[in-house]
């Protein structure tokens, strides 16, 4: 086996492309096939879903024991099905408290050994105060917030758009993985949050020039490269903002600014929240230009990899076009296999 000879140690070769189970067609058709395989690979398996439901049930019991009348809901990617193996679970607790019982719940979660002692953190200064923890049994990360309606509404919105655009889940999971491995997937590390990313994909599909964006079987490779082309090269972040409601449109940022209180400016990546028009989803994404650069890079790499010119480059069985922009680490692949 030629490829074995190329490794330097006793360890097995791990290619970082665990979704690749066959050889793909040439060029862009191959990229389409590969995106489908990646989606199949990375999508939650029944055992993973089950495991996550158990995490939710354990936390639910702790909350109910503290406040029998409280209500617990799942929102975020776990409720919409658009999650990666490493994604967090988002929970919200509804109840009546004078001050949010962040520390009471934190203490209970420690005492009941739900989470590792050191993993429970209370972020009480955040815009939306939350408790962060890592489940002791499964190592799944959980965020718990209180009395916040938006997340639950957003989950409903996301499900509706999934119905409208069948290609949405494929693009979103590839892009989430792309941002995750560049640490551009969280606002506080200078990236964009998953709600912003989701709305960017929706806007891309809503305003797509050709009608095939909402067809059931377009070439996913073409759409992925076109997403990178739009937000990596063409979209004018200085002048243009994104509106989702009423079928989608663009907004002039200087117009948006006129409607804002003095001293406020629309953020670099301005996305009007379809659930709360006064809210700019992209605010505090101060790393938006880093994300733009990453998208531009992906555009260059992919459009070159699918071009006929690239055929003059060495080619082998383990080669992967999608693998040039995304990789799944060995730890994640192993975590998924147990």
């Amino acid at each position: 086996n030629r490829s074995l000879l190329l490794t330097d140690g006793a360890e097995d070769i791990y290619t970082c492309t665990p979704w690749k189970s066959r050889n793909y067609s040439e060029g862009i058709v191959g990229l389409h096939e590969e995106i489908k395989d990646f989606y199949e690979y990375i999508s939650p398996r029944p055992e993973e879903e089950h495991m996550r439901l158990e995490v939710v049930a354990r936390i639910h019991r702790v909350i109910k024991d503290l406040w029998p009348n409280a209500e617990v809901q799942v929102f975020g990617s776990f409720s919409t099905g658009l999650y990666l193996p490493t994604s967090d679970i988002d929970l919200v607790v509804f109840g009546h408290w004078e001050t949010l019982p962040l520390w009471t719940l934190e203490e209970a979660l420690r005492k009941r050994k739900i989470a590792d002692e050191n993993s429970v953190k209370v972020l009480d200064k955040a815009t939306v105060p939350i408790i962060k923890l890592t489940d002791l049994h499964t190592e799944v990360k959980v965020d718990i917030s209180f009395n916040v309606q938006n997340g639950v509404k957003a989950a409903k919105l996301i499900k509706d758009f999934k119905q409208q655009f069948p290609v949405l889940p494929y693009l979103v999971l590839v892009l989430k993985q792309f941002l995750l491995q560049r640490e551009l997937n969280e606002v506080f590390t200078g990236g964009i949050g998953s709600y912003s990313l989701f709305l960017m994909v929706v806007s891309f599909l809503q305003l797509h020039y050709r009608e095939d964006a909402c067809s059931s079987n377009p070439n996913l490779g073409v759409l992925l490269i076109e997403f990178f082309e739009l937000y990596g090269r063409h979209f004018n972040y200085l002048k243009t903002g994104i509106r989702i409601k009423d079928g989608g449109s663009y907004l002039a940022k200087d117009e948006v600014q006129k409607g804002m209180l003095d001293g406020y400016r629309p953020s670099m990546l301005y996305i009007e929240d379809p659930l709360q028009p006064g809210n700019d989803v992209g605010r505090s994404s101060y790393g938006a230009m880093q994300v733009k650069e990453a998208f531009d890079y992906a555009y260059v790499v992919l459009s070159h990899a699918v071009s006929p010119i690239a055929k003059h480059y060495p080619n082998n069985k383990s080669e992967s076009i999608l693998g040039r922009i995304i990789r799944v680490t060995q730890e994640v692949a192993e975590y998924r296999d147990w």
Partner: protein
Amino acid sequence: DNCLERAYWHKRCHRCDMTGHFFDACPEIWRQYHITTTKGPFCKASDPEACRKPAYCYNCSKKGHFGHECAQKRMYNGTYPSLPFISRYDTKDDIHYREIR
């Protein structure tokens, strides 16, 4: 060679008639597969230019024209818009010709 490469603003594509690239690097070569997902003949849109109305511009945000048609300054100099439609689909001969180049 380097000088030629640098003069990208002189590049004009014979295929899509846009500036900024030559025909052998035309994005239409991959874009023409937009509704083709298997090897073999192209699936072609019944009307390749059939497009969404109203148009919105990603460059100046205005309604009524597409971003590639916009006359306003781009965010970065040296970026060239590309044609989002398919001006023509390759024939078998076109593909064959590219293979043997």
